[in-house]
């Protein structure tokens, strides 16, 4: 199959959806090559990409209003951490208007935001805030872990009639080329994927956590048979696929970049324990980053973030 990088896959999905649907456009900071003022609007209109002032709450609110009135915006928040300045239009407006309007008004909006640590950018450029969104009813949350899913999930996100948070991990931007189908390729929201079959333990990876889980599984090959499950979307969450895996393995580990405390790992454990308490042979665990702001210094960042070696260790811990 033809290969693409993660960001190329996202670009292709957006381009194809723009072709397919005139109402799809992209808006955000520092995107698009526009340089001259005259005919600003027409320059943007040509590339269906609006380069905004640094006004996240303003242009995210604008996107919600546009989505309420017939368009399908893809709104780019340059770094996930920046949502701190524009949570309101996302969680109070986009997420709630469908219900508050009695179901009359839909908000087909994609919020696309690169996230994650590991790039030595320090406390304000390392966030993974998916659990804020998972806890905000009305939003769907998508976190692709490879170019194939990145393309297919972006198409589903754009075509969805509600607000979708699309979180792309920066480390995955650099993962290199991987197979990715050409043309129409849609991955449905709410379907997990078993990225590596195994029998001894279920490791649920979130975003870059999948990459680390697969590396760990490879390292343990021969000793421990690790099944790697990628939920791909956290809302809706395909808990059945996770339960089916746990039924087989009896052990569960969740791996993500976000801090352990209050992370989605806890939510996944709640869901599994609630329906599959009896399936678990040992205590399930979450491997997330340390509960601290992300320090800049490379050795400190490495110590605070789950590394592949930590996943290996955690797998052994869970199996006891």
């Amino acid at each position, binding site marked *: 199959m033809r290969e693409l990088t993660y960001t190329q896959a996202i670009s292709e999905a957006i381009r194809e959806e723009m072709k397919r649907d005139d*109402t799809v456009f992209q808006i955000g900071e520092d995107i698009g090559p526009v340089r001259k003022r005259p005919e600003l609007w027409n320059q943007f209109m040509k590339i269906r990409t609006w380069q905004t*002032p640094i006004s996240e709450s*303003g242009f995210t609110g604008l996107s919600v209003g546009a*989505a309420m*009135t*017939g368009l399908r915006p893809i709104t780019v928040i340059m770094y996930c951490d920046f949502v701190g300045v524009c949570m309101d*239009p996302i969680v*109070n407006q986009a997420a709630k208007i469908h219900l508050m309007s009695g179901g009359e008004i839909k908000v087909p909006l994609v919020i696309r935001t690169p996230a994650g640590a590991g790039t030595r950018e320090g406390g304000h450029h390392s966030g993974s805030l998916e659990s804020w969104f998972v806890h905000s009813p009305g939003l769907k949350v998508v976190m692709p872990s490879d170019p194939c899913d990145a393309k297919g999930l972006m198409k589903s996100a754009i075509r969805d*009639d509600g607000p979708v948070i699309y979180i792309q991990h920066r480390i995955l931007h650099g993962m290199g080329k991987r197979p990715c189908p050409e043309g129409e390729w849609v991955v449905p929201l709410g379907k997990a994927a078993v990225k590596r079959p195994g029998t001894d333990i279920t490791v649920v990876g979130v975003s870059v956590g999948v990459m680390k889980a697969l590396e760990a599984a490879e390292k343990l090959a021969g000793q421990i048979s690790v099944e790697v499950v990628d939920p791909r979307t956290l*809302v809706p969450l395909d808990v059945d696929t996770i339960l089916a895996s746990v039924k087989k393995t009896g052990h569960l580990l969740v791996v993500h970049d976000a801090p352990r405390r209050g992370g989605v790992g806890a939510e996944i454990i709640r869901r599994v324990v609630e329906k599959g308490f009896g399936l678990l042979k040992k205590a399930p665990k979450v491997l997330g980053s340390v509960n601290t702001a992300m320090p800049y210094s490379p050795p400190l960042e490495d110590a605070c973030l789950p590394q592949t070696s930590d996943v290996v260790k955690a797998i052994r811990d869970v199996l006891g």
Partner: protein
Amino acid sequence: MSHQFGRRDFLRAAAVTGAAASLALAAAPPPPVRNLVEMLRLMRKIRHFEEVLTGLYKYESFLSQGDIVGDMYDFASKGIIAGAVHLYIGQEAVAVGVSAALNPDDFVTSSHRGHGHAIAKGAALGPMMAELMGRKTGCSKGCGGSMHIFSKELGLLGGNGIVGAQIPLAIGAAFSAKYRGSDQVAVAYFGEGASNQGTFHEALHMAALWELPVVFVCENNLYAASTAAEITLAIPNVAERGAGYGMPGHIVDGQDVLAVYAAASAAVERARAGGGPTLLECKTYRFTSHAGAGRGQHNNPEELKVWLNRDPIALFEKKLRDDGVMTAAEQEGLKQQVLAEVEEAVAFAKNSPFPTFDEMPVTPDTDLLA
């Protein structure tokens, strides 16, 4: 400098005349007689809709229990209308004057104080009253309440519980109109208090930058909750802020419905013609308390007396009589018609069932019960 202003400046700033507005803006042709009567009818609809609902809201407050240090905005209603209800009484000329300049398919975003904006844009009283009573027949099936009146067909993009959030939504609707090549215009209604919110700055600026077809209607009623504008605004006129975005800003007499109409028509036509956004500051006043359906105590009873002399309905009725458009008898008749309509709305609402949990309009795939 800010400290040179005093209450007098704010009151003086508020005491503008319709003339000032028409001076500031290309005068629009006065509306035909039929419309004049319809404008009065809409003003009365707003007034009586709210007067009547007030009787259905049994105000209760815990405020006395705490004190100024610990108090929060606490109140409840034991009536068949519950929650937080903010009244528009006293400001009717603004919504009606602006709406008279709009097409049916133009967009409106509104605030927590949105009954008047909705009614002026054409919202039916029955479903609105039903919404306030939380009934299945409410315009949001009971899921919205007083602060969240929507109507897709009327271009009502909702009231908003978040002060200032409606301003970016409006530029989004204007963006959408321009993108789709339609000639729709969007209006954002907000208070002077909201003009201190960052969303005001970001939205007005982008609207000017991209020349979006939007009109920003700031209703300066001199208070934000119980806080006087004079202690939270560093300048007496919000309209002055337009200059920071290269946008015209005009002061309008918010008690004079024709002055509002003139200013709004000019701004709306400018927007429709591709001329970009305009900021209109309508000086007005809230005749009741901030929330609790007007049942809390009023911020300033003496001041209120002065403003009651500029009741927008009384002023407009007098003008219509002076101009021979309507007689006192005709006006009384119109009032009675409206009162009857409101009673019908109340009856409709009271006779409507409550929605059940299963009827909630949730999207199936958001694992509601997960």
